[in-house]
């Protein structure tokens, strides 16, 4: 009996150790927050266009009847990582034919317009979220954030932070393929 009890602390330590080992997995990001939106319909929102950018605004109705999955990217001109991500998204649009929608988060219209003119504008539609309320509806924790929404407006995937670097891009590409967001030969 005494012996069994004396083993308990060791047992507890081993169990905790197992969790620690699991927690050290380099792919795990402790500050990442899972989205409640996954497999849920996209939230209700209706955003006007950004002044000075010749793209229409964005609302939920633009997400519910598409021929294939689309990408919704939340960006801002003041967000430094967005710059690096922009090149990646542009390439995805040009090379893989994804449909990209933008939510311009808490940004001045003139800054956003200049930013898009400098870097190029791969977005099909851009909604201007000046107050950040739409951001909350999407459960936004920071900028940039990127969602994949299927043709019927159901959110399939969420990526927090910039999609930059081979690892992130591979993960994102895989999600795009699974969602069928990439234009296939037949579809074009």
């Amino acid at each position: 009996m005494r012996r069994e009890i004396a083993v308990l602390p060791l047992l507890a330590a081993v169990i905790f150790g197992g969790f620690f080992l699991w927690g050290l997995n380099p792919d795990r990001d402790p500050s990442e927050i899972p989205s409640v939106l996954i497999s849920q319909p996209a939230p209700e929102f209706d955003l006007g266009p950004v002044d000075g950018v010749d793209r229409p605004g964005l609302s939920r109705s633009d997400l519910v009847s598409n021929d294939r999955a689309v990408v919704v990217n939340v960006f801002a001109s003041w967000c430094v990582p967005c710059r690096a991500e922009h090149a990646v998204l542009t390439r995805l649009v040009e090379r893989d034919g994804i449909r990209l929608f933008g939510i311009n988060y808490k940004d001045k219209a003139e800054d956003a317009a200049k930013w898009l003119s400098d870097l190029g504008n791969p977005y099909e539609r851009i909604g201007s979220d000046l107050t950040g309320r739409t951001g909350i509806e999407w459960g936004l924790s920071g900028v940039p954030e990127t969602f994949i929404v299927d043709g019927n407006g159901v959110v399939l995937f969420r990526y927090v932070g910039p999609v930059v670097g081979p690892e992130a891009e591979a993960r994102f590409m895989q999600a795009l393929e699974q969602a069928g967001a990439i234009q296939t030969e037949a579809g074009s």
Partner: protein
Amino acid sequence: MYPEIGHFALALALALALLQSVLPILGASRRIPVLMKSAQATAIGQVLFVAIAFAALMHSFIVSDFTVRNVVENSHSLKPMLFKVAGTWGSHEGSLLLWVLILTVFGAGVAGLGSNIPAETKARTLSVQAWISVGFLSFLLLTSNPFERVFPPPLDGNDLNPLLQDVGLAMHPPLLYFGYVGFSIVFSFAVAALIEGRVDPAWARWVRPWTLAAWVSLTAGIALGSWWAYYELGWGGWWFWDPVENVSFMPWLLGTALLHSAIVTEKRDAFKSWTILLAILTFSLSLLGTFIVRSGLLTSVHAFAVDPERGLYILGLLAVSIGGSLALYAWRAPEMEGGGLFRPVSREAGLLVNNIILAAATGSVLFGTLYPLILEAVTGEKISVGPPFFNAAFVPMMLLLVGFMGLGPLLSWKRADIAGLLQRVRFVAALALLAALASWYLLNGGPFMAYLAILAALWLLLATLREWALRIRLFEVPFRDAVRRAGNLPRASHGMTLAHTGVAVLMMGMIGSSAWKSEEIVFAAPGKEVSIAGFDIAFQGVERVRGPNYFADRGTLAVRRDGDLVTTLFPERRTYPVAQTTTTESAIRSTLAGDLYTSIAEPASDQVNNAGAWTLRILYEPLVNLIWIGAALLVLGGVMSLSDRRLRVGAPRRAKTAASDAVAAE
């Protein structure tokens, strides 16, 4: 050159640690005196070389030698000197070096000061201590070398975080480390005892001063950190249940339990395997803290830049040290015979309850801290466990503990007389209840729990004083006799009284500042008046002032009470142009009754309706200073106990017998 000397000295320290981890323990088992004694020399050698390395790193920081990567990343030529010095332990590498330095200081302490410890026990203990040394020195050299060089050097360093440029924060890590690394030696004693297979009252007495020293530093370190958060972060809180705070708090809780259970082992030869387990677990929790802070396992404001590889290395160290020691415990502890018997109402039973509650509280904090990780691993769900949980779990346990704390010291060993006990505390219990009811009537409002806490704190305070009065027979014998009796009491007894009083005082500070805090947040243009807690505060405007490496918007607040000017406060909002950071320097009027805490934030965002207005935050925190006073009493109590001469009994005065024995043995 200096950084290289430091690097070389670390290598030498590792070499000595390797030797010390093998030779003395070998000497102890083969009974070869010269090998046993080698522990003393190598322990002192280790501290010497680690200190050289530490001094070399500090020198690099002081002269801003940017050929050292660690200096580049954590310092800047414009930093004030004090913070250049503190920068030495501001980074992962530097703080780990400090960690190792303290580890070796405790090893050398036992080698040099532990003159009453038999050579064999000492040799084993120091060998175990050296195992930890080897682990951490190799960790330092292999994954976190503080002496990594850059050449050609960049023109200036990267870091000038003004938030961390604070005296309290600069001193907080050394004290904290002194505390929780200090428990390493207690761990080593415990493992050595397991290897030797013997724990007795003498062992408890050898360990006690080291446990006390570590506990005192940890208490001071935690209090200092809490104090820093209170006045630097600018929103008047002093404890946030952040994972990093929790991991320093858990060793404290368990260390407190250890202090008490070691008394039972010392006086009554009981609780032996439990005391050993506590000694192992206390240091294990310290190691766990080191692991959590440096591995990025949990998110925290205080965490160092994370690196999974380092995390893996420390986890390996944890597996070996904690796993190894607990396996040894599972093997050897059951053989330890139980000690003296005692009755359900006795000092032993009281201390048992103390230990049970402290251990359960530690377990709850540990579980709450790690639960998000566990749940994520099991179900993938991510949740947060924040202050509401910890308060709900922890506060009731502490109230229970405090209830017993008042009684414990009044109990006698083995069996206590219940009727006599009740008779002795009847009066103070009634007094505490009366005072709590009175405060309810007078304060009307505030949560019920707060009144329960008031009752508990008052009960503890009065019962502690009552116990002390009983001891010196105050009011029973002439006053002069009572004073003489007080003088004759052992220091440890005064220490206990002080520490328990400290807990009561601390509690009152916590209750006052959390349940009766009042707050005003306003936009204030010059001339605006705010009333809070009986003070009338007039905002007289903001002026721009220059500091050595910052400029500040300094607000002027005239504080009046009943029309009389009490004081003028100057809260600042500092901007550091180089680091492009803004900090808040709150201005506090501190009295025993409470703090008037003022801080100034940015100008009103809406300048149309609030032209020229600033955001003012004014808090009144009743009794908050009792928290630091209580902590100081705890520390003072610990130091008082530490100075008790009984802790040094057994040290040879190089008595004739010992000397002649040695000659005979030659």
